[in-house]
């Protein structure tokens, strides 16, 4: 149990209060209310940490903290109390960890924003929106039911739209914001449909209730088809939010927003929400009871999309010259890793459940472990990129180079981030990525398709190391190719960077004192041991393979971009290479295909409907109208001559009378007052007269 439950509400209310305060009074506050936002976030962080520590202490290492619902209030009451929809918060291992992670990263990014946004216009708007953004993410990860999750999820969607389009004077930014909103909307609609289906099936939206009702409803109300459909619909929402394969197009364009917003979206909030949602969807993927047949199809779809997207995005990152877009593609790729890990882990767990064996949650914890690590190093990379952009005023890596001298701190921390992203020992990326790959390989023994996905993952590891160090070498090595005078950022920006750099080192090793990261997130069963210690030789080998390809990629990048021993042009020299390069630069023509789809199919349909409307429906309406005119002409004649004649005669007489009567309405107050006085006199006379009459009458009677 959490002592002081209201503390959990305060975690949400702090940034919300900051949003309201800055939104209303921001223009009067110094720094556009930035200090308020930072203060609120710091408060949230401290309280989150408090909650997290309580969860750890009471759960214990290897023990379970009983998920606790912090009751709020009934939002939509129902006749059956258990069916009413409540606003309440859920604290379990996962949400406690996410709360700490989100609030900590948001805090660092807000502090960094104080420096980065210092000279921008519209700071109150910025700080109000990021505060609301943080509220949305904190609410998403602490929601107790799917509806509440959806609400906060949509708040995040709105904020991402507002923040990506923060520089609303730039048409690209406005277009990118619109794109982000519309593309994620497709996923959100799927999510909404999923929530409706859940409600229809379970008559509740609370996670715990669903989990409890699962076995009793299967296979009656909850048919196997529905059990497959629900997680896929939820995953559809996650695909939109986390920019996975079909809906990935918005994320690279979202780089039009301020870099801090990118960091916020990529590291702490938005895209991580998709992974979080999928992790929550495990209650469908891995049922508690062995009586329920797990939806293997859905799991495979999740894993396949993850495995495909990871390579797919990594290839596009290789050819991009925009420092932030490279990082954006890497985000898509890394998130795909997490989905791959979740899918593979779910497959193993589901198999265990259906066989009635003890559940091995290695994949689940590996994916969330990667989420945890990725949050730190991706925040670091984005903020570092922001620092670089701050220094050289461009996003294009071709205009950078040799920046390690003017930007000593930034270059070093970026190196840390790059090593972590590439997955080099002992940086954090190595542990989690290797573990995901091991789990995927393990799942291969159950379904050989996972071997293919593992191969894709290993290839991605190579590409990741390559493009990461391509980025680093192009930016910080060689000669400076731009025209600015780069300078190091102020301490308010570099200090958060250094803190994050420290975390890229520490967060990977964090699993050791925890005796396995799974103890932190915990689904169904605590983890037995950490992979590198006391695991089969096969796993060490797999880790070695992923590390090896990463080193290979690093070496290739070094050869091509640092020493220039292998010129980059050699890859595009052949026709095939040129075609691939062109394809990658055009992002597999997917964006173009979406545009073409919109132009031809959507507009074509609209035009056809328009034609139908104008010609057919309007024709019918016009025909009816003409017929009506003919009838109306006939009745009009009758009306004018017979009816109007009578009416006019009456009205003429009325007008004549009223003309005479209105002479009495002189407009002079005193003439009215005369009438009033006369009336009073008459009343008094009546009273006297009546009393006289009465007296006279009674006199007669006597």
């Amino acid at each position, binding site marked *: 149990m959490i002592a002081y439950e209201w503390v959990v509400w305060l975690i949400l209310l702090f940034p919300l209060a900051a949003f309201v305060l800055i939104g209303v009074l921001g223009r009067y506050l110094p720094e556009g209310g930035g200090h308020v936002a930072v203060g609120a976030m710091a408060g949230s962080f401290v309280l989150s940490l408090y909650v997290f520590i309580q969860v750890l202490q009471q759960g214990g290492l290897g023990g379970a903290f009983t998920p606790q619902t912090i009751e709020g209030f009934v939002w939509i009451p129902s006749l059956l109390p258990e069916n009413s929809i409540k606003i309440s918060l859920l604290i379990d291992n996962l949400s406690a960890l996410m709360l700490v992670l989100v609030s900590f990263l948001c805090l660092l990014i807000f502090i960094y924003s104080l420096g980065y946004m210092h000279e921008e216009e519209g700071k109150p708007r910025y700080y109000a929106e990021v505060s609301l953004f943080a509220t949305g993410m904190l609410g998403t990860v602490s929601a107790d039911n799917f509806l509440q999750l959806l609400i906060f999820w949509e708040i995040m969607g709105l904020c991402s739209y507002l923040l990506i389009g923060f520089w609303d004077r730039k048409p690209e930014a406005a277009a990118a914001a619109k794109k982000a909103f519309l593309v994620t909307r497709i996923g959100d609609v799927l999510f909404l449909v999923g929530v409706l289906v859940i409600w229809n099936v379970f008559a509740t939206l609370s996670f715990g209730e669903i989990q409890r009702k699962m076995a009793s409803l299967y296979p009656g109300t909850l048919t196997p088809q529905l059990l497959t459909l629900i997680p896929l619909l939820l995953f559809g929402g996650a695909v939109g939010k986390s920019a996975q394969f079909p809906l990935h197009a918005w994320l690279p364009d979202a780089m039009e927003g301020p870099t801090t917003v990118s960091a916020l979206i990529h590291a702490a909030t938005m895209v991580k929400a998709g992974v979080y949602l999928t992790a929550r969807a495990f209650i469908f993927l891995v049922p508690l009871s062995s009586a329920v047949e797990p939806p293997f199809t859905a799991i495979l779809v999740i894993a396949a999309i993850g495995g495909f997207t990871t390579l797919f995005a990594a290839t596009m990152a290789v050819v991009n010259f925009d420092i932030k877009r490279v990082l954006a593609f890497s985000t898509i790729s890394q998130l795909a890793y997490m989905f791959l890990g979740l899918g593979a882990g779910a497959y193993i767990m589901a198999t265990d459940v259906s066989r009635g064996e003890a559940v091995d949650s290695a994949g689940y914890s590996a994916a969330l472990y990667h989420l945890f690590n990725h949050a730190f190093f991706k925040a670091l990379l984005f903020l570092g990129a922001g620092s670089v952009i701050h220094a050289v005023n461009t996003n294009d890596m071709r205009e950078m180079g040799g920046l390690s001298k003017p930007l000593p701190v930034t270059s070093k921390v970026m190196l840390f981030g790059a090593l972590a992203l590439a997955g080099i020992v002992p940086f954090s990326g190595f542990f989690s990525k290797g573990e995901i790959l091991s789990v995927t390989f393990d799942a291969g023994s159950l379904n050989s398709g996972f071997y293919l996905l593992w191969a894709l993952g290993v290839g991605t590891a190579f590409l990741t190391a390559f493009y990461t160090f391509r980025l680093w070498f192009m930016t910080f090595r060689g000669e400076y190719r731009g025209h600015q005078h780069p300078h190091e950022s102020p301490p308010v920006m570099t200090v958060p960077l250094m803190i994050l750099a420290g975390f890229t080192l520490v967060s990977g090793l964090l699993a050791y004192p925890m005796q396995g990261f799974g103890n932190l997130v915990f689904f169904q069963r605590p983890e037995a041991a950490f992979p590198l210690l006391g695991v089969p030789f096969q796993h060490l080998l797999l880790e070695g393979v992923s590390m090896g390809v990463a080193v290979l990629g690093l070496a290739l990048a070094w050869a091509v971009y640092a020493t220039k021993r292998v010129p980059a042009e050699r890859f595009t020299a052949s026709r095939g290479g040129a075609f691939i390069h062109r394809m990658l630069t055009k992002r597999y023509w997917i964006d173009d295909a979406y545009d073409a789809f919109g132009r031809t199919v959507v507009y074509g349909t609209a035009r056809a409907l328009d034609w139908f409307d104008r010609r057919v429906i309007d024709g019918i309406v016009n025909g009816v109208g003409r017929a009506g005119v003919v009838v109306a002409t006939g009745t009009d004649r009758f009306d004018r001559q017979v009816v109007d004649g009578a009416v006019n005669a009456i009205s003429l007489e009325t007008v004549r009378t009223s003309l005479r009567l209105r002479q009495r309405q002189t407009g002079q107050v005193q003439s009215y007052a005369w009438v009033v*006085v006369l009336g009073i006199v008459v009343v008094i006379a009546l009273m006297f007269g009546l009393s006289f009459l009465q007296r006279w009458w009674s006199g007669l009677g006597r």
Partner: protein
Amino acid sequence: MIPLQYELLLSAMLLCIGLYGVLARRNGIIVLMSIEIILNASILNFVAFSSYSGDASGQVFALLGIAVAAAEAAVGLAVFLGIYQTHGTIELDKIRFLKW
């Protein structure tokens, strides 16, 4: 003690004089003054009856009446100033915008 009839007679006379002013005079401000006289005639009744019945609430009501009368004078004058500024006159027989 003054006989109550005398006082009522005085009050009635004041009321009639005020009523004459309201009805006969054409100047708006004189009409307002006449209204003050009418109000005072009624306040006089309050005080007199309070004195006769030995109940202080009549005096309280008289105070209320005085306050109301003062406020009424202020508001009425403001109205006539407004009329003067828009119509250039406060002669009631020339102010005919209540007509029709």
